[in-house]
């Protein structure tokens, strides 16, 4: 005789382990995004475009045998003819040539997650901010923020305010003593009551920030090879997405320069074909000119991002450095980003060695809290550099 029980549990025993597993997947997504941000397919896309992000599954590993010829497996085939050397099953997909790409290895569990650029930005930029925003006369940039808004008697557990709660308890205790319903000498505990509980209340407020303008200055001269230009564009694209995502009203000024600088619109900026020589100072002068005309430093937070390959006409280096130093005074923060490999640029075929110092070296003297230099020699550098600039915790 067996026994029978009708089991009625409502609690889902797996709930916490499932959420823990999902947390791990979420973390994996965030990590994969970093590899994806610099990929060709997302640069220059509009916000609605869906992007597929491969995420490595949270795999459990153990010692297993590989599929080599000596490791044989056995199957049954009742009612079928089988002969030695016969091919069974399907041909496995050929591995692509670059084997180190994530997910190429057989047996790797992969999830593919589809998200729009907007959602992606949410993941990426959640803890980044424009540095050193100051209060200026104009108020424009709005930003939604969660603000504390007093205490209230209901709320979620993590927002329980112990201090307020205990205050209410003490208050009630004193009143009880006064009314004679509780005797402190009796040794009874005066317990918490539900009405004592106080929770911190937070509510979203629109934060009025001060006005900000961001200058994008890019070198589009002939020396910007396809790959360098791609790096520069990626950097600006990410920057642009960041600003758009985080700040609802912010001015962006696009300037592209060769031996001569022009203010261009967004589309031109991201698509322009490079040619011509390089005079870095022209781009910076253009910035100064525009600041003079339209953005008074008293009213605006100014940010300038310059991106180029560091090749400049030797005669212009002094001039450029001068402009950088001058601009630094107006800017909250300014950034010089150099793309391409540092070593590769040195002693190039036409250079005469010592004379061909790159702007990277020139700008070293100017570097301080307000003037930042970053180097992007490959696409994997973009995200870490970006995080460094905007103070993301990592």
């Amino acid at each position, binding site marked *: 005789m067996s026994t029978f029980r009708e089991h009625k549990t409502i609690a889902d025993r797996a709930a916490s382990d499932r959420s823990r*597993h999902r947390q791990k997947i979420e973390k994996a997504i965030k990590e994969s995004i970093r590899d994806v941000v610099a990929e060709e397919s997302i640069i220059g896309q509009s916000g609605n475009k869906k992007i597929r992000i491969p995420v490595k599954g949270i795999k459990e590993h153990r010692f297993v045998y590989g599929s080599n010829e000596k*490791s044989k497996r*056995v199957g049954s085939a009742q009612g079928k003819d089988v002969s030695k050397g016969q091919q069974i099953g399907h041909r496995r997909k050929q591995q692509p040539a670059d084997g180190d790409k994530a997910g190429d290895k057989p047996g790797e569990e992969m999830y593919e997650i589809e998200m729009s650029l907007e959602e992606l930005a949410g993941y990426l930029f959640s803890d980044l901010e424009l540095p050193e925003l100051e209060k200026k006369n104009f108020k424009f940039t709005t930003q939604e923020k969660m603000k504390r808004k007093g205490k209230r008697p209901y709320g979620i557990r993590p927002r329980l305010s112990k201090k307020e709660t205990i205050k209410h308890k003490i208050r009630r205790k004193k009143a009880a003593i006064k009314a004679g319903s509780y005797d402190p000498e009796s040794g009874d505990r005066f317990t918490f009551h539900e009405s004592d509980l106080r929770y911190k209340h937070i509510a979203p407020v629109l934060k009025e920030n001060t006005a900000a303008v961001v200058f994008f200055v890019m070198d589009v001269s002939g020396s910007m090879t396809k790959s360098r230009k791609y790096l520069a564009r990626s950097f600006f694209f990410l920057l642009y997405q960041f600003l758009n995502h985080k700040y609802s009203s912010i001015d962006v000024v696009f300037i592209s320069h060769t031996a001569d600088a022009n203010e261009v619109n967004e589309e031109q900026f991201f698509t322009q074909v490079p040619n011509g020589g390089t005079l870095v100072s022209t781009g910076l002068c253009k910035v100064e000119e525009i600041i003079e005309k339209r953005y008074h430093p008293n009213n605006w937070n100014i940010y300038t991002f310059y991106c180029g390959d560091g090749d400049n006409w030797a005669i212009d280096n002094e001039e450029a450095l001068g402009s950088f130093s001058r601009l630094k005074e107006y800017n909250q923060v300014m950034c010089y980003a150099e793309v391409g490999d540092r070593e590769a640029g040195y002693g190039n075929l036409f250079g005469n060695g010592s004379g061909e110092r790159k702007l990277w070296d020139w700008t070293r003297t100017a570097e301080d809290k307000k003037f930042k230099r970053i180097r992007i020699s490959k696409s994997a550098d973009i995200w870490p550099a970006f995080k460094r600039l905007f103070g993301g915790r990592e």
Partner: protein
Amino acid sequence: MSDWSMDEIQDWDRKICVLGKSLNLDWYPIDYEICDYKEMIGHMAYTGLPTHYRHWSYGKSFDRIQTEYNLGMSGLPYEMIINSNPSISYLMTENPMATHILTMAHCVGHSDFFKNNRMFAETEADTVIDRFKSAGKRVKKYMEDPNIGVDAVERILDACHSIRFQVPRTPGIKRRNHKDLKKYYTKLIQNDKTSKFDNFNINQLPLEPDSNVLKFISENDRHLAEWERDLIRIVEQESLYFIPQAFTKIMNEGWACMIHEKIVQALGLPAKYHISFMRLHNQVVRPHLGQINPYHLGYKVFKHIEEKHGFDECLRIREVHNDETFLKAYLDRELCQELNLFSFSFDKKASVNRVAEISDDPGWQTVRDDLIKNVGLNSVPVVLVKELQKNGTLVLEHQHDGRDIELSEANKVFEFINNLWSGDVKFTTVIEEEVWEF
């Protein structure tokens, strides 16, 4: 709506038990729990144990099972039974009466197997539920301890899980601890007349290669905290408990299938149940093309034995064999040919699977031996603790038997062992006939 009532189930259970006794079966009393499909998924995800400890990997398998079930990719098992005294089994409310009858008869077979097969002698079925409950509580306590926390617990458990199958493959044989081994070897050396032990270092650790990696780490890493040691022991104990089941999967399922068929045939089911029962039974014991269905193989072999030697011989065999010896002794040429077994391997150049051997004469022996190489834990590489060096380096060695291990996986496991062992770790194996070390 369901076509059954509790009274009906109990009625059939009574009849099943009577028939089971008449077959000379001897099983633990069975506790059936009636649960819905969601709880069933929960039981499956947590290896059936109602009191299993928490870990994200079980949440992962829960999600996977649920997704597959919801998409109709796979059904849920009809039976799930735990090797405990009393045995715990689950009946899913959604199932019809015919399925319950098959399940209950099937469970009698399993429970009888647990109680009688010698592989299970050391699993302590009487206390297993309480032991798991206590382990589950301790894991929970460590997770909630502010000085430890979930992340730290997971660091240990993740690592332990990666080597959870690196435990001795000799169920029923007790482990000798270092002290006993030392005594044993000292005696051997003293009585040694063949100078075989002249170069034997009595102070080395371990004295003989240790197949229980988890146990060795928990006993010999002096930097482990007590809770870390406890977690390692919990995983090791669970593995030891489950290993007999891995060793007898084919026999156990074959036996249960044979028993449920015998019992149900004797029950005299009304026609409405009989047809569904037959359909279900045939589904369970059908061969899977190109694979081995343990239910099918075990059932066929037991049937074959019964035909030749009678049922009493089957009863004896279910006590003394495990899958390896069972197949070696009773999977003969006739049966290999009937099941049309063949072995295959992966041809790297053409990247296809190719048939290596078929069940002709004398090929069937090779096929059988290849099959044996894959049953139970034989499909898991053997890794032994070779040496613990003076500087704290743990030396592990893969026992290469001709089959290379998957390096990318081994690398990951190596990282995990490094997370667990406080000193350096060395691991050697053979890849394409060359020694490989990391």
